[in-house]
C-alpha cells in the first residue's frame, strides 16, 4: 500500500502550496546511470516544485520506452498512466476531456513520438489540447536496445557501426508546420534552459511541445552519433537566456532597453527572453521559426530555446465549449434530459 506521507511543518523550503521539493520526487529511477532522461526528471522535479504544482491535480501520462518510464520517477503523489506505445496523446486527450482541471503532463520518447506515434502527435497538436508534451529525444529505441528511431540524423552511426540512411523527422519542425502553439527545444544537460521552459509550458494554455535532446548513454553516446553528449554540447546553439516570472510572484527586474522581450503566458506568468545574439529570433514568427530550424539542421546544429509561441490559440476544451467543472463529476440530473423532454422525444418518433 501507499504510505500516507506527512505534510512537513512549514519551513523555508516550502513552495506556494506548502510542499518541499522532496514531495515532487518519485520512485528511484530504474534507468541507466547517466541517462539523459534522469536529468530531465530532476528538472521536472525542480520546475514543478518551484511552480507549485498541486500533486493531486497533476496527471502524468506516457507511452512505452525508457523515457516513458520517467513519470514513475517524479511526483509520486500524482496519478500516472504508462499506456501503450505511441498513443499517449489520445490517452491524454481523454483524460483532459474527462477532467478539465487536471494539469496533464506527458513524457514520450522519440520512437514513441516520431515513429509509431507520429499520427497521434500530429493530431494532438492540431487539437491544441492543453498539456505539456515532453519528448525525451535520444535518436534511438533505448528500451529495445538501441535501434535507430525516426529522429536519428541521416549519416549518424549506430553502435554496431551501421549508418542511418534516412532523414530525421524533426518533432519541432513538424509541430510548427502543424500549427502548434508552443514549441521549444532543449538539452537534458541544460537545466538553466529546461527549467524555465517547463514552467512556461505549464503556464501555456494549449499543447506545449518540448523536444529535449536526452542522450542514451548505453546505446547512442559514441563517436559518430549526433545525439551523444559530446556532439550535442558542441552543436547546441542557444537562442535566448530565459527567465520565467510566475503570475503568483511579483518580481520586477529591470533589463537594459532592447536586450530582451517578454511573452505573457496564458496563466498570467511571463517568460522573459534575453537576447544572446543581436539579431534575435522572434518566437512569435512562425515562418522565422521554421527557417531557423531548417537552416540549423542543414548545418548539423540544434537551436535550443523557445522556438515558437502563440499564447492566444484556443485549446480543445474551449473549442468544444466544455464547462470548467469536470465532465466526470456531472450526475444523472445533469446528464439526462428531463422526463418531459424525454417523453416529447418519444412522441416525435411515434407514427
Amino acid at each position: 500500500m501507499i504510505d500516507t506521507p506527512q505534510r512537513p511543518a512549514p519551513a523555508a523550503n516550502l513552495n506556494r502550496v506548502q510542499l518541499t521539493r522532496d514531495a515532487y520526487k518519485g520512485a528511484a529511477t530504474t534507468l541507466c546511470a547517466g541517462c539523459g532522461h534522469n536529468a530531465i526528471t530532476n528538472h521536472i522535479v525542480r520546475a514543478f516544485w518551484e511552480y507549485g504544482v498541486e500533486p493531486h491535480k497533476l496527471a502524468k501520462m506516457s507511452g512505452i520506452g525508457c523515457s516513458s518510464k520517467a513519470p514513475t520517477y517524479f511526483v509520486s503523489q500524482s496519478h500516472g498512466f504508462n499506456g501503450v506505445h505511441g498513443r499517449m496523446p489520445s490517452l491524454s486527450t481523454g483524460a483532459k476531456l474527462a477532467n478539465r482541471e487536471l494539469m496533464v503532463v506527458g513524457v514520450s520518447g522519440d520512437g514513441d513520438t516520431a515513429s509509431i506515434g507520429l499520427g497521434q502527435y500530429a493530431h494532438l497538436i492540431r487539437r491544441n489540447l492543453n498539456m505539456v508534451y515532453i519528448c525525451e529525444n535520444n535518436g534511438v529505441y533505448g528500451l529495445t536496445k538501441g535501434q535507430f528511431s525516426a529522429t536519428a540524423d541521416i549519416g549518424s552511426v549506430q553502435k554496431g557501426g551501421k549508418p542511418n540512411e534516412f532523414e530525421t523527422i524533426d518533432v519541432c519542425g513538424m509541430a510548427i508546420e502543424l500549427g502548434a502553439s508552443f514549441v521549444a527545444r532543449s538539452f537534458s544537460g541544460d537545466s538553466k534552459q529546461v527549467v524555465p521552459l517547463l514552467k512556461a509550458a505549464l503556464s501555456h494554455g494549449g499543447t506545449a511541445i518540448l523536444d529535449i535532446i536526452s542522450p542514451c548513454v548505453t546505446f547512442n553516446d559514441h563517436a559518430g552519433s549526433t545525439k551523444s553528449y559530446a556532439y550535442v554540447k558542441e552543436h547546441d546553439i542557444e537562442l535566448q537566456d530565459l527567465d520565467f516570472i510566475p503570475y503568483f510572484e511579483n518580481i520586477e527586474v529591470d533589463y537594459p532597453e532592447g536586450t530582451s522581450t517578454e511573452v505573457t503566458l496564458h496563466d498570467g506568468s511571463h517568460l522573459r527572453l534575453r537576447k544572446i545574439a543581436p539579431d534575435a529570433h522572434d518566437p512569435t514568427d512562425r515562418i522565422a521559426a521554421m527557417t531557423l530550424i531548417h537552416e540549423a539542421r542543414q548545418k548539423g546544429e540544434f537551436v535550443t530555446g523557445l522556438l515558437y509561441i502563440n499564447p492566444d490559440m484556443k485549446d480543445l476544451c474551449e473549442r468544444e465549449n466544455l464547462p470548467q467543472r469536470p465532465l466526470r463529476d456531472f450526475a444523472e440530473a445533469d446528464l439526462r434530459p428531463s422526463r418531459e423532454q424525454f417523453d416529447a422525444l418519444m412522441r416525435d418518433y411515434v407514427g
Partner: protein
Amino acid sequence: MLAVQERPASQLKPVVNNFTFQAATINGTGSQSSNLVITRALFAMGIPVAPKNVFPSNIEGLPTWFNIRISPEGYQCLAGAADVLLALNPATWQRDVLGVRSGGAVIHEANYPVAGPTKRDDISYYAVPFHKLGRDNIDNADLRKYLSNMIYVGSVAWALEIPLDEIEGALRQQFKRKPSAVELNMTSVRLGWDYCVEHYTKTDPFRVRPMSGRVEGKMLLEGNQALALGVLMGGCTVAAWYPITPSSSVCEYLETFANRYRVDPKTGEKRMAIIQAEDELAAVGIAVGAGWAGARAMTSTSGPGISLMAEFTGLAYFAEIPLVICDVQRMGPSTGLPTRTAQGDISFAHTLSHGDTKHPLLLPATVEEAYEFGQAAFDLAERLQGPVFVMSDLDLGMNLWMSDPFKYPETPYDRGKVLTAEDLERLKGDWGRYRDVDGDGIPFRTLPGTNHPAAAYFTRGTGHDEDARYSELPEVWERVLERIGKKYETARDLVPPAIVEDHGHDVAILAYGTSHHAVVEARDAMAARGLETDYIRVRALPFTEDALRFVRSHKRVYVVDQNRDRQLFSILRLELKPEEDHLISVRHFDGTPISAVAVMGPILVAEGKASADEFTQAPPVPVVTAGIE
C-alpha cells in the same frame, strides 16, 4: 439469400396486409425518401412494417433494394422474396423480376424489356413510363431527379391500394419543418397514381387495408438512434469515434442529442465532448483516457475499427479501465461488404487483444434493447472496470424498427467501486488499487484529481501487484491475471439475463441479436407444421447460469449465428461439459438480414419434418455488372 418459394398464387383471393414490397432502384437518386413515405403511410394505416434497406457501398449509381415486409403478426424479419416489386434499375432488372414470388406483381419503368426470361406468366406487370412522366411534367430542373421518385410512390400506392391521403399524411410528417413541400411532392405522386388508374386494372392479389391493434402508439426508429439515446441517457460524457459505415450515425445522432439536451442554455456550455478522432486507435485511446479519469466514455465503430482497437482494449482489460465499445457489425472479414449485415465480430470482440483476455458483450436484438444496453454498458463497464462491448449490427442499426416508447430510467448510475478523498480518510489511506477486497475480483480505484495524499497510484499495462507497484514476479503475475479472470464470472450475475420460453419441448432454439426476429416467425411456422420449440434468447456474454441450465436441459439446441464460423455456438460449447453438449449450428452469412426460412429450413430438415429439397434455392441471376466495375 433471398429464397424464391412457390406460393399458392391466386389472382382472385386478395392477400391483405401480408406480403413483401421491394423497391429496386439506384442509390444516390433520392429514392430513399420515397421509400420512407410509403413506409410511413403503411405504418399510419396501422399496419406493422419491417423496412429493410439493402444498399451498396458507394454514394451514387449502384443497385439498392428497399424491402417492406408487412404482416398482420408484425414480423420484423425479411421474408425471403418480394411479392410486389418496383423495378427502377435496369442493371438488376432481370434478377429482380426473377426473384418475385409466383403470383406477385411488378411495377416497372415502361421501357424495360418484358421478354425472354423477364416475361413470366405467373406474375402481373404494370409498366409505367416514369422517366417520361417526369420529363414531361416536372418543370423544376433542380428538383426533377428527386421528384421523379415521388411518381413511383403514386404507382405503388395505387398497386397496394394505399389511399392517397395516407401518402399525403406521410409526406406531411416527412416535411414537418417545410409544409410547403407537401403539395409539390403530391403533384408527382398523383402523376404515378393517375397513370395507373388510367391504364391498368389490378390483377394481383396484394393489397393493404387499415387495421388496428398492432402499431398504435408505437415508434419507428433506427437502432443507431436508439443506441445513441441510450448512451446519452446512460450518462456518457466523452465519446470518440472515427467515421465508418454502419456505425457513423451512432455518434452523429449522439451529437444531435447532445446539442439538444446537454447544452446549458445560459452559458452555452456542453456537458459532453464528442471527438471525431483521426482514426480508431485514437478514438479508443481517448475513451480509455477518459474512462481512467472517471468519465463515462465510449467509442463506436465497426469491424475494421475493432481490429484497430485491439491493443488498447487489452490495456483497458489488464489495467482495469472502464471502456464501452459499440460495434455495429457489418460483413467482414476485411473491408468486406461495408453496407451489409453480419454477426461476424462476436468471437473476435469476445477475446480481443493478444494474451489471455475475455470481455463481456451485450447483444441487443431490438431498438429498445439498443437503448437499454446503451445505458447498461456504462454501469457494467464502471462496475467491472474493463471493456464492455455493445454488439449491434447493420440490420438493427440502420433500419427502421417499430417499438413501444422507451422507458425513462428510474435508477441512478452504478459508478462502481470508486474511493473518494473521504473514503480514503476513513480508510486511513489503507487501500490497494488491485486488491480483491470483496471477493468478486473487482478492486477499488481512485480518480485522478482526488485530493488525498494516498489517492494516487500508477496505472500501467505491465505487470503490477495488488498495490499497483511494478512487478515481474511470477506468483504476482499469475495471481493478478487469475483475479481479473474472476471478474468474468462475476459478470454472469450482472449482465442482462437471457429471455427464455421453456415449455419442456425437446427441441430448443438459441439465438441472439437480430436473428431473434427470424426465430419468432420460424417458430410460428414450425409450430404450424407440428414442430413445437422452446426458445432462449441470449442477451449477453458471459452466459448466465440460467442460460446454461436451459441449454443443458434440452435434447437438441439449435444455435443461430449470422456468421460462417459458428461463433456464439463455439463460445457456448466451451462452457458445456461434453455430456451436456447437444448443440447444432444454424448459420446465415450472405450479408442480407436473416429470414425465417434461413432458421427453420435447417431445423425442419434436421428434425425430419421437411425434405432438403424444400429449401433448396433456385440459383439467383447474377447482376449485369456493366458499369459497376
